[in-house]
């Protein structure tokens, strides 16, 4: 089973039970406004938040748990990785604090302990330990209206499509997270546009790790090629100097 969350924006009443449950489950400290916070309510102590859009429309924001996560591909020490069950988790013991994951995430999700002398990256981990126990995440369990539900990704996609076809005049004909950046484990259906959840309204379907893959695959060739080229040029010039009776160069 590939764990996933489907959030139906039309059903959310903005009660914040998911936020409270997340806080309890992950033992997060009370949240205070800080100078370095974004205005979307996520912070080092808030791994999910409710963003209000228009009249009575609430959108829950959290880590999207991409199928091919940019953060995990960017992390130089592999502190972030996608688990088999679907959660993108963080190993604070490996992290060196470069914050490349924060730069790479197309949704701008990871947050940082800016106030700590020993800071860590903090974000939703899809209640990884609960998943291992066979339980669902705290947020979906707490939701009183079923606006955010947990399940298998394929089943949730089917459910989302069923809701859209049933009420095509209510929903946008789009499942956010179905294909974008290679697909995410946190899916949305909505009657308001959710382009604001990412840096650009349309992200394309190319998984983020592929953007750097070409350059990274070229590395061995560039290394050997440049080395070989320099050695070759050096050999040719040295031989030419020898033949023309020129003095040996290179040594002091």
């Amino acid at each position, binding site marked *: 089973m590939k764990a996933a969350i489907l959030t139906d924006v039309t059903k959310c009443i903005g009660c914040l039970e998911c936020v409270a449950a997340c806080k309890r489950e992950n033992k997060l400290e009370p949240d205070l406004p800080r100078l370095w916070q974004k205005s979307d309510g996520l912070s080092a102590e808030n791994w999910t938040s409710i963003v209000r859009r228009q009249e009575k429309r609430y959108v829950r924001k959290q880590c999207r748990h991409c199928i091919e996560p940019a953060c995990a591909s960017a992390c130089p020490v592999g502190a972030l990785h996608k688990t088999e069950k679907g959660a993108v988790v963080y190993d604070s013991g490996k992290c060196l604090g470069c914050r490349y994951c924060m730069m790479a995430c197309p949704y701008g999700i990871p947050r940082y302990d800016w106030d700590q002398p020993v800071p860590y990256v903090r974000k939703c981990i899809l209640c990884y330990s609960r998943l291992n126990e066979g339980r669902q995440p705290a947020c979906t369990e707490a939701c009183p209206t079923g606006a955010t539900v947990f399940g298998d990704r394929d089943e949730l996609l089917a459910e989302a499509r069923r809701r859209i076809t049933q009420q095509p005049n209510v929903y946008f004909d789009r499942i956010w997270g179905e294909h974008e950046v290679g697909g995410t484990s946190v899916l949305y259906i909505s009657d308001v546009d959710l382009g604001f959840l990412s840096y650009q309204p349309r992200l394309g379907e190319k998984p983020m790790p592929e953007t750097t893959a*070409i350059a990274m695959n070229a590395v061995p060739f560039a290394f050997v090629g440049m080395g070989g080229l320099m050695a070759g040029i050096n050999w040719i010039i040295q031989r030419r100097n020898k033949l023309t009776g020129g003095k040996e160069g290179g040594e002091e």
Partner: protein
Amino acid sequence: MDRVQKAKTVLWSIVALAASVGTARLLFGLGATTNLSDTTPWGFWIGFDVMGGVALAAGGFVTTAFFYIFKREDFHPLVRPAVLTAFLGYVAVIIGLLFDLGLPWNIWHMIVFWNPHSPLFEVGWCVMLYTTVLLLEFSPVPLEETSRYARMRSLLLKLRLPLVILGIALSTLHQSSLGSLFLIMPFRLHPLWYSPILPVQFFVSAVALGMMMVAFESVVSHWLYRRSPATELIGKLAKAVVWVLGVYLLIRVIDIVASSELGLVFSGSRESVLFIIELLISTIIPLVLFSIPVWRRQSRWQAVGSGLVVFGMVMNRIDVGGLTMLSATGGSYIPSWTELSISFGIVAAAGLVFLFAVERLHVWEKRPQDEQSQQFAMPRFDVISSVWLGNPGMASRVKYSLSFILVFSLGVAFLPWEKIQSKGVPQVEALRARGGDTLVVDGNLDGYGVAFAHDKHVETTGGKDKCVVCHHMNLPGDKQSGCYQCHGQMYTSQDAFRHDWHADPNGAKLACVQCHTPGDERNAKSAKQCKDCHSDLIPAGAAVVVDNYYAPPYADAMHRLCVTCHQQKATEIEGKQALAQCASCHGTLSGQNVLAADAPVTWPSSEGSVFLPSQKLTRSHKK
């Protein structure tokens, strides 16, 4: 020598400032000492120190390629200073990283934990390896000062050609990989800078920058030590750089045209202006300048041209490194003075080491006279301090130390202490609730208010005798003080006891001994308690028991008092379960939702616990 002394004094002062700020950075964390944020996690340190530093150090591999590979004997005078600069540059990059990394003591993790998919992993490895290569390339210079290590030196000299080739290959990799770093940010980086061939652009510009950095450094150091500049040699570099700059300009123009972004260049936006300025300074003006043979042979224009390339290319690294992402992320970021001082401090320290090396080692053809050689010169009387400072060599050291100590203390004094203490929590004064029978409780007037039906609560709580349930502590002589009168700050705790006012002759006019017993230590613990004088201060039957006089923040106080009671009533009264939900208070104000549109809805605290900024936070970090 006074020019060198003045320069060194300035450099030592900058290092001192960085030392004080750097200590604060390590003690108090990134938030207190930088303007970095969740929106802008990479700032000036990455853009200038790391990206700029690596690019500036490109002179090392370019010069060694000219001399050892292409056998250009005439470049010999530039090789040693270029390799030294490159080595110092890389060490500076690593030191800069130690301040930027959140967990700098984990920097070695890259050696054991591998993620070959990450461009940063590759950059890290190349920097480690190339710094080692540069050290090996340069070490024959200090080793020639003594005959003791002659065998080691001759071994290093034999290894030199393979080392040079390895160094060039490694430089090629990570100069370009610094560009690859940003390939994963197509949505952040402005389209004028984002390009799939960023790695190529970075490599070509690094070659140009490397050549011009060597030229610029030569001009500056010759001016500093009043030596005649190497005009002819720099003229050759200037001639060569024209080709490299030409290729670079071509690549960038083709890239812009091919991705049909030409319209963006002339759109008049902030980024378009920045783009044009960057390209003019870094490429077009120097290209024109050095294309004219008469100009590139004059040392004045050499200084200008090389300076422009250095400035412009570093500007390019800062632009890519974060400046042009601000429009996509919607953030604002201006580096704090603390960030700038650490960056410049590291550069200044590298400069001092460079000067130290050229004075003591055979880096240049002719070693400049150092202060040490003047130790038998006539001592001079210092005009500023009117103090006999000893011989000129010693006098200069006294001046450096003095400037270091003075600037270090200035740095400590001007540290952002308020931000350090508040841990980034803004000081927001809580305002009184407004209204009559129904109060609007909204301490910071941000629209997150609650319509609190005071009259209804009086009724359900049990009438006028039950005020004490909520008004758990009142100012002397008052029976229903407003919450804000003690809980005066929205997000931080404060002392409800006003010591100043009690001691003030215009206030309570109390003598010290009236509260503090003579002989005892004068502190809050040993002093008289408030209730000893104000018997009516804490009424019986209150919902909150006051055991100290630190008033929790307004937001917390409200939640704790209301939520506790609501949760209790929700279980006690049949059919009132809804009382425990947030929406029972938040959500309605005369039928309208009080939350402002587009505002995040936050839950201040899961258990209504009190937050003291000084209190140590304990946390569990889960995998």
